């Protein structure tokens, strides 16, 4: 079976869902896959809902927009309500359990992973790295690309002004991956 995975990554504006979407797609490119990334913004950049769709494939990518994805990263409750019903049966659903009641996870139908992204990020010293924790868990749970490709892509995706934060972002990615084991 050829490697192929599509993902919707969703949360509040400001949670960094666009950044990890970019990072996932960039790392996929580095790992020799075809990739697409497309953002969808709500009316506001911060506080509104934001989501993006990433497709990673060994084959030529047709549609960059997916109605029924084969994986999800869900950072807040409104995103769970909106996207979990669309996730295909048996597929990976990374849920930010710091902000979402896991009672709402559809464990019967899809493969739910409770990842306390904000709590882990807080322990690492920066709550804003919750997104990286989620992506680390996602890459580990799906196995679509090596975590190393993601860590190696950080300098290409994080703007130069924040490059001093690359080591701590890498730690957050690793912490997320370790949680899945």
């Amino acid at each position, binding site marked *: 079976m050829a490697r192929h995975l599509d993902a919707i990554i969703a949360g509040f504006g400001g949670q960094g869902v666009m950044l990890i979407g*970019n990072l996932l797609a960039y790392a996929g490119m580095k790992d020799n896959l075809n990739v697409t990334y497309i953002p969808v913004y709500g009316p506001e950049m911060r506080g509104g809902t934001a989501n993006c769709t990433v497709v990673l494939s060994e084959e030529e990518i*047709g549609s960059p*927009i997916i109605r029924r994805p084969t994986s999800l990263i869900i950072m807040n409750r409104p995103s769970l309500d909106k996207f979990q019903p669309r996730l295909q049966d048996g597929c990976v659903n990374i849920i930010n359990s710091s902000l979402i009641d896991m009672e709402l996870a559809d464990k019967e139908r899809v493969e739910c992973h409770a990842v306390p992204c904000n709590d882990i990020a807080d322990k690492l010293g920066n709550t804003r790295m919750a997104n990286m924790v989620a992506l680390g868990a996602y890459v580990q749970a799906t196995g679509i690309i090596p975590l190393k490709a993601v860590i190696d892509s950080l300098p290409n995706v994080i703007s130069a002004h924040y490059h001093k934060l690359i080591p701590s972002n890498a730690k957050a990615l690793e912490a997320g991956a370790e949680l899945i084991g």
Partner: protein
Amino acid sequence: MTKQPERIFVKGNEAVARGALAAHCKCFFGYPITPQNEIPEFLSAEMPKAGGRFVQAESEVAAANMLLGAGACGIRAMTSSSSPGISLKQEAISYMAGSEIPAVIVNMNRGGPGLGDIGPAQGDYYQSTRGGGHGDYRLLVLAPSTGQEAYDLTIKAFDLTFKYRNPVMILGDAILGQMKEAIIPWQPENIDDEAGRDWSLTGADKREKRLIKSLFLEEGALAEQNRTLQTKYDDMQSYVEYEEFETEDAELVVCAYGSIGRIAKSAVRSLRAQGKKVGLFRPITLYPFPSEPLLALARQGKRFLTIEHNLGQMVDDVRLAIRTVADSEFAPIFPGNLPVPEDIEGPVLKCLEGK
């Protein structure tokens, strides 16, 4: 072993902007509007480094007229906008067509009519392929569906606009503009930076004066100009590009262009996996329209379904192309909705059942 060419991960807008620089575009005149802002954003930083000029004009009207001025001087120049802004540029585009001035115009089509929304749509097909402004004229219209095509076709647009001395439009949409993909940039060789040497306005120093105009009041002059233009449009017909996918044994051929073309490709793959004999015909040049290859498919007895992100525009050209032997069904995706492969699979299945 030769080194793999380096891939870069960029939005379609940036692919267009990089293609323009690779094609030695020396002037860009812009005005902001979503979803094309990354084109002026990128060029405002990179154009001066390449020895060119970037101007943020006071309006779309001004930008289009600056483009006319640069083109008249034989300079490789471009403007970009999105639907409402492109409407504002139409007067100058008509003048450029009438006075045979080369220029590249990029439209990242958004929802309409009016201000519409900032999402993708294909409502500007008629405007692009029928001229758009007043008078009898045509633009060469190129419709990329991937980041790589956006880069490649922008380079091609500069060749074509000087070859035909006719404005060329690159018609994308908010999907193409906003989506990031991996592309391989390349540098074309043998670009003739002075392709306009025989007609452009360069200061009549030690040569006869030249006149570039679209006003022809002398008896017979306008008819003659229209004849010249018509001959040019006839010549352009030899330049068509299109993609056929799984059409060979297809019973039904889906006709779709641009972003909808690539989304239709996903639909065709998924329907093929279910054993349905479906193919895709994707025009890459919208004007000239690839009528001959479509007619060839129609002569094989295939049926057609045109799907667009509008209420039915390109379907007219599909029907004209195949009118002697077949017809095309049509299914709209309404501007304002984000298209997905299911929007295409449904109508295709319905069409297959309804034979």
